[in-house]
């Protein structure tokens, strides 16, 4: 099976996964006890208002009809092209805004935080893991292992608050929250990622300020996630360094750095790549706490707010969005895996 066939097969397999996810989310929201409309009005709504909200939300239709409408809304390309986001239903707020619009307006903030956090986690984790394996059983190895264990065990909000206190309150180097200095107008929306949009706008002030705002939250998440990468890299490297091809490489007189980084690390990288995909999903969960700690206006903060207001349709939309994202990341990781490891395609 060639790479192309593998990718196509993998993409096709994503469809039933998503369908299952959408169905489960839809059913779970419907079998929860209590009528969301009644809960919304807290017995104070007039029958007309309640009926109107049921109609807006489509809850006046039979369940199968709601399901079909819901699925159709998600895959409605025409709607997607018209609005720039999929139809995930209406929010249960008085203003009845589109949930898709709300989610897509906050999602770039979470994505930006996730990307930078993953970069920090990967770089710190893989480098320290490699160094640790090379210094097996030495003091440095013990220190790095200790660091990995502590960072993995430490709660994200705790490390976040410590960073805020040190770098924000005591040193006044970095802001303690929000995406950009309030005195600076955010860059014009192109991707929604402030750093990228600042570069596209060619505005250094905005780039510097958005990077400053991004540093503490992404460092917090990145360092916490790096723990697992340290341990995984170390274990895999230790195993790989004992293999024959490494001995052969050394016997050929290759430099140790070449043996370590070009030969051993490349072979030990595949399980790390898989873990990166899984951690991306974890990272989105961690983002809820990080965003709350750093007042980061992303999907995590959005979900917390929606839960507080029992906005069922918005929560449903956000869960679907998380699911979509994790599915896409898994797809990308699998394709990369196949690219790096030809055995997968056999």
């Amino acid at each position, binding site marked *: 099976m060639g790479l192309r066939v593998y990718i196509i097969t993998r993409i096709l397999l994503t469809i039933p996964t998503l369908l299952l996810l959408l169905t489960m989310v839809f059913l779970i929201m419907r079998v929860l006890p209590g009528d969301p409309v009644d809960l919304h009005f807290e*017995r104070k709504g007039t029958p007309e208002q309640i009926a109107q909200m049921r109609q807006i939300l489509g809850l006046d239709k039979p369940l199968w009809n709601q399901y079909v409408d819901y699925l159709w809304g998600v895959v409605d390309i025409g709607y997607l092209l018209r609005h720039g986001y999929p139809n995930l239903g209406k929010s249960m*707020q*008085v203003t009845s805004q589109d949930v898709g619009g709300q989610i897509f307006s906050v999602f770039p903030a979470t994505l930006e935080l996730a990307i930078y956090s993953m970069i920090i986690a990967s770089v710190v984790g893989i480098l320290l893991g490699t160094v640790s394996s090379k210094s097996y059983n030495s003091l440095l190895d013990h220190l790095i292992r200790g660091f990995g264990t502590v960072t993995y065990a430490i709660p994200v909000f705790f490390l976040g608050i410590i960073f805020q206190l040190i770098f924000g309150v005591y040193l006044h180097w970095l802001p*303690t929250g929000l995406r950009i200095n*309030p005195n600076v107008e955010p860059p014009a929306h192109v991707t929604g990622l402030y750093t990228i949009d600042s570069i596209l706008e060619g505005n250094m*002030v905005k780039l510097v300020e958005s990077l400053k705002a991004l540093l503490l939250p992404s460092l917090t998440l990145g360092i916490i996630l790096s723990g697992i990468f340290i341990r995984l890299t170390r274990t895999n490297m230790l195993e790989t360094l004992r293999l024959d091809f490494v001995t052969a490489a050394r016997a050929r007189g290759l430099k140790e750095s070449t043996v370590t980084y070009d030969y051993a690390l490349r072979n030990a990288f595949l399980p790390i790549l898989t873990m990166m995909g899984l951690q991306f999903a974890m990272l989105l969960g961690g983002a809820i706490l990080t965003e709350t700690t750093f007042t980061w206006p992303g999907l995590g903060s959005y979900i917390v707010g*929606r839960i507080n207001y*029992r906005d069922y349709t918005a929560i449903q939309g956000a869960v679907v969005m998380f699911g979509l994202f994790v599915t896409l990341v898994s797809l990308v990781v699998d394709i990369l895996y196949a690219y790096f490891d030809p055995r997968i395609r056999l």
Partner: protein
Amino acid sequence: MEKIELSIAVLVLIGIIVSSGTMYYTTTVMSNLSTLTSDTATLTENVLNLTSTVRDLATITGTLAEAMGEFTETLADLEARLAAIEASLAAKAKETLIVGTTDAVENTLDPAQAYDYFGWSIMQQISSTLVSVKPGSISGTDFQPELAVSWNASTDGKIWDFTLRQNIRLPSGIELNATHVKDSFDRSIALIPYIPDGAPANLYYDQIINRTEVLSKYKVRFYLNNAYGPMLGIMSCRASAIVDPTYAPWMVQVNYTAGDARASTPLAFVGPYYLSKWERVGDKDIEIRLDKNPYYWNATSGYPKTKTIIFRFYRDASTLRLAVEAGDIDMAFRHISALDVLSLQTNPNVKVWLGPGAPIFFMCFQENHAPFNDSRVRRALAAAINRAAVVATLFPGLANATYSIIPPGMLAHGDAFKELGDANLTLTRSLLAQLGYTSTNKLKFDLWYESSGHYQLSAEQAALYKAQFEASGVMEVTLQPADWPSYRKNRNNGIMDVFVYGWYPDYFDPDDYAFLYWASWLNLHYDVWNPTVYAQQVALYDQARYTTNATLRVQLYNQIEDIAADQCSIVPLFVTKLWAVTKPKVSGLVLDITQDMRYWLIYIAD
């Protein structure tokens, strides 16, 4: 012959040896010469190479020096740029006040709908009312001209005339006139049936105001159904803000419009600021920006003092505190927690501002749950409470115990509940004993508290109340937490035995407090179980409401409070102060009983 031959042979041999030696020597010399030549050539080449290398090195050094120079220049340029950024931000910072808050606009900035503190606060900055309360007022009834320069009421109190200030311009250039005022009130009243939760509905505008009439370009008349004591209080609240007809279509509720701040509110931009940006996702504000309004009628007096106000929204009190301590924001206003305020008072990097309070907290009893339909039980619980201990433990210097539902400083504030005492456990035991509750047969009930931060330190308060009740030895209390949406739902469904609730004033008059004893939205069923006293209290309330005689009003409210202390439908607990935390250079905050934050008075000193 032999000798000759021998001699020749010897000579030949010698010749051979000499020749060989000579040849060998010659060859060696030649070889050495060749090596020498080769070495010389190598040397020459090496010398040449060395020269070239030295030249290259010089070139490299030059390039490196050049690169270093360029790098230093770039670095200097970068530093200069960063310095310029810092300088421009610093310059901008003086013209801009960054305010951090955990509040958010609940739904809308439409005076026909909005009924929340923060929404009203924004409305106060961008629009105006006919009258307002003087900054620094102690009683909340010192009214001053705003859009109206004068006013007068008829002797029966049923007709009020307001004369408008002239030359107040809307941004469209149109002059504000009496028709604008009439249309604003007529619109709000007409929308009441469609917005039962809106401020005009809750403040009974439709029952108070019979009709409005334009007497002249600058004069508007209000015909009331009855004389109404707090008329000026109502006129000064944000539900009475004037709207711009261009953005306030008749019978249309105006709501947030993404990307269009002007279309997001129907208010007439005649206040010190105008709404230049409002970014919101769901019900959570991301950013609100107010810019100086060039059309503000009082601009010639130097207001607003700060050109721009930017509101940034924080998730909770702790992140807000960190932001103000880190200097990310100039000012934190609502809600830094009481305990944080106490510790911030000793921090030299921030300034804590304190003002008198009007928010009141009280304990409620669900009378549909026996035995709370018996006033003796309610009185027993009221007597067991030790307000002073709660205030001293949780709000030292930031709250005052109250024995009246009308806050201190306000007309008719009294101390009717003092007759029950504080921690008066003798009375508690005696009253409960009448109903058979003893140390072996304890009164058992659930005490509910709000657990999501809507009220400050509510879990700690609940723990104290539980300890105070159980100190009597005849009660057993189970604490029940609920987040704010559940708490409200439980309140509406009447499922909480005992719970604590808070009230924030709409206008500063006992009229806005005394009704709490039987407020229908508390859903306590007081009217069902105590119809006679309920009717008596409502009659007194209406009598106080529909008179402008202050002395009579005080007497009437005192009578209501006496009945309330006897019935204990709800029990007043304490009134919290108002506080804000700013950078030391921020000045001009006026915190008074109105609880208003007048941002146009605030400035950042040099």
